[in-house]
């Protein structure tokens, strides 16, 4: 299973774009990269998933360079409600094999007024 490395914490201000980078040097050919968000005392919530290049949805963008050894979650114009922990996960063999994903401590994002 690929191990991921993320910053433990980040600070930002309302209205700014936030980029959280995750390193996954041992990513396998079939692995996908998935990001989840977790608020205190709540279950994680899926944000976005990608394999290569760029993926965008209504919430975020995910940038993955050609070597796929890292990825960057981009949150445009954050608000106070984006204060949460963000987890980067690398799948063990494809988008369905997230059953045994290893969750790190994530990145604790604090958005300030």
């Amino acid at each position, binding site marked *: 299973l690929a191990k991921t490395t993320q910053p433990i914490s980040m600070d930002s201000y309302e209205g700014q774009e936030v980029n959280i980078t995750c390193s996954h040097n041992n990513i396998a050919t079939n692995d996908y990269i998935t990001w989840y968000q977790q608020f205190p*005392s709540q*279950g*994680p919530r*899926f944000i976005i998933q990608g394999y290569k290049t760029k993926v965008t949805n209504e919430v975020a963008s995910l940038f993955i360079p050609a070597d796929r050894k890292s990825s960057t979650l981009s949150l445009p114009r954050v608000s106070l409600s984006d204060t949460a922990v963000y987890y980067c996960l690398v799948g063990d063999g494809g*988008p*369905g094999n*997230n*059953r*045994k994903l290893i*969750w790190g401590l994530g990145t604790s994002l604090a958005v300030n007024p």
Partner: protein
Amino acid sequence: EPEVTQTPSHQVTQMGQEVILRCVPISNHLYFYWYRQILGQKVEFLVSFYNNEISEKSEIFDDQFSVERPDGSNFTLKIRSTKLEDSAMYFCASSEYVGSGELFFGEGSRLTVL
């Protein structure tokens, strides 16, 4: 929007007691999971369940743990004889099919073992 629901939201029990945590996955989902998160620590995979049997389980999921889907809607996690270290938030999750990268998590059940 469909959601995964879990009960109870919080349970306090004495060490050695049996606990059953209940989950109602999203109705058209076929794959079900239990995770746990000790306060301030990582989310840990416990078990996955498909077609009425365990697909995978972690080393945490020992003989004290069991899962079942007794009536086609509820998905339960049973801890036979709780230990202090079982105190954690337990999350149920479901996905529509194995090819889906998106897990839908419930709000969790907080278990406190005294």
